């Protein structure tokens, strides 16, 4: 592919990502009208408050951190044709364990505790991913159904533990004890919420960028997703690759959960991950970014804008915060169409005369 062609296909992939967003916002406008508000001013609030002032931008980046990670987690598995729908459960489990350990190990100094908890989060994510991974790799059990169902099991287990074993009796609502202040990563700028966790997320992102774009593993993942039979026929060890990809996906989800807990939530509650959940947000981000690293970064920031913006419209207008889930569902729905416009391909042997004439119509007939 030469440069021009590459640029051309990039142009179309951008257009194909923007059209679903526009359609979703268009349908979302109907929902806003139902809430008796002006869609234009509501969307204005959404973007202005999260994009056009310094505080808003840093807030947006703060929320983008875990989203970048869950987006990567989904993308790496989907790109290989594996549907790890368990990101949400892996993220919740990691958040929960980090909340408990962040309280128990509270005496440790910050420089030790913060990295330690991030590692714990990653490990929990991997451990939770082990069951569906092994079932897929060794027995070829449909990983999508298994991960979806295990999410329900995990949610019930964590709910039980939060309501009983690890409940903070002094708290007025169902919640674990707050993590120690030593477990909270320090802020980059004193006045804004952005923490060093964002830097961690970016570093992980860069590592994954090189793995996906430059390493043998990255190419193998793509090959696996495009044609598994062919990939196997070339001698790739599928089983091993499935294990690596699914566990890496779990590790990213775990890191996202740990970071979200330590930099934003500080205690595990039953609504830790929000609605519809950071793991599900990752699905949107991976699709919107068409599974490419750069696309994911842009999509994560975009969706963080929509998310912070939605809480702003909920504050300043009568449109409920739930508008964000509606927009998300609609964007995913229209993204599933994949292509709205296709680059025109010039086929070999195609008569070029009619085409020229057609072109001239627009040029005013001048030859």
């Amino acid at each position: 592919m030469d440069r021009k062609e590459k640029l051309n296909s990039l142009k179309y992939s951008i257009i194909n990502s923007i059209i679903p967003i526009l359609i979703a916002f268009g349908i979302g406008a109907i929902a806003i009208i139902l809430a008796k508000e002006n869609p234009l001013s509501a969307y204005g609030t959404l973007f202005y408050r999260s994009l056009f002032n310094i505080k808003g931008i840093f807030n947006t980046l703060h929320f983008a951190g875990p989203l970048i990670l869950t987006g990567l987690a989904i993308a790496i598995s989907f790109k290989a044709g594996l549907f790890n729908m368990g990101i949400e459960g892996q993220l919740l489990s990691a958040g929960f364990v980090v909340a408990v350990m962040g309280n128990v190990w509270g005496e440790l100094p910050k420089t030790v505790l913060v990295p330690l908890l991030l590692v714990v989060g990653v490990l929990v994510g991997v451990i939770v991913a082990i069951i569906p991974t092994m079932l897929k790799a060794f027995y070829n059990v449909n990983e999508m159904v298994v991960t979806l169902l295990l999410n329900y099991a995990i949610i019930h287990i964590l709910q039980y533990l939060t309501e009983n074993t690890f409940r903070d009796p002094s708290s007025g609502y169902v919640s674990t004890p707050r993590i120690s202040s030593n477990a909270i990563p320090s802020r980059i700028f004193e006045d804004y919420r952005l923490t060093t966790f964002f830097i961690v997320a970016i570093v992980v992102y860069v590592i994954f960028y090189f793995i996906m774009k430059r390493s043998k593993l990255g190419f193998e993942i793509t090959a696996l997703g495009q044609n598994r039979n062919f990939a196997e026929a070339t001698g790739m060890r599928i089983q091993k690759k499935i294990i690596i990809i699914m566990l890496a996906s779990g590790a990213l989800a775990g890191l996202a959960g740990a970071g979200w807990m330590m930099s934003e939530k500080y205690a595990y509650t039953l609504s830790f991950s929000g609605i519809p959940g950071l793991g599900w947000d990752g699905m949107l981000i991976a699709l919107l970014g068409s599974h490419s690293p750069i696309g994911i970064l842009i999509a994560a920031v975009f969706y963080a804008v929509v998310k912070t913006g939605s809480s702003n419209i909920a504050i300043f207008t009568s449109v409920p915060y739930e508008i964000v889930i509606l927009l998300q569902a609609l964007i995913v729905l229209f993204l599933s169409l994949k292509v709205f416009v296709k680059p025109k391909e010039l086929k070999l042997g195609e008569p070029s005369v009619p085409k020229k004439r057609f072109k001239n119509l627009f040029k005013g007939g001048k030859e």
Partner: protein
Amino acid sequence: MNLDFIIKVFSDSLYFTGPILLVSLGGLFAYKAGVVNIGLDGMMGIGALASALVLFYTGNWLIAIIGGIISGVLIGLLFSFFGVTKKANFIITGFAINLLSTALGKYVLALEGRTDINVIGTISNLNTRIEIPLIKDIPILGPIISNQTPLVYISFILIFVLSFVIYKTKFGTYVRVVGESEEAAKSVGININKIKYLAVIIGAVLAALAGYEVAINQLNAYTADITAGIGFIALAAIYCGDGKPKTVAIYAILFGLTRSLATNLAIRIGSIAGLLQIIPYLMIVIVLTTVAIINHRKSLYRGFLDE
């Protein structure tokens, strides 16, 4: 363990099996036609939302059922238009429908400023359970089988009706041919898209009816997370039974029984009860694994993407 408890477990297992059976029997048509519909859960949720809203505002259960069915047809058309006509990625379209169901539910509830749509006042004078004369007097079996909602009985009758449709009618044969080989179907002049549309819509309508059953008859209220994964449980039943109506039904009944066991044991043992809720989900994973091990002994890895 006394007799009453055992009767309660089996009677409740029919109660829980009803919706699972409806969704899985409907969903197997799409499965047989080669369309993976993971949107069943969302279709059920949208059916529940539509029928609860209609019932809440009209107070008429018949209109509510019709509303649920219409919502099922519409969402089935939406899925087919994207997945079949536009050749979108089924998995993502289905996933989007699941998201859409939760989103619509939460948005509507937030707009109305409530946490659920409670229809208990609307249907208080409506007897949702049927007592079957004669059968209800049989000892042990009577209390189990009798006094269920009409949709439970319908779902069990549907096992045989749909089994007949799939294996003995022209439509059923076409569905299976399309699923086996689109090329072959095309060569004998079957309208592939039409068959796929119908297969998906059957699933969507039955899923919507299951939504009606859970929201109106069982819980008397709609909440945004009303499906509790029943759509995915049904999907697991379809996979385990490889789309054969009677086998799928056996798995659906098995999953219903597990759910009933978990719920009834939970009532007995106090605070650890919440933990028992995981049994059905774990059970399904175990069953899926067992079935997969048996099925894939022969084929191991080659070609498993084509499932």
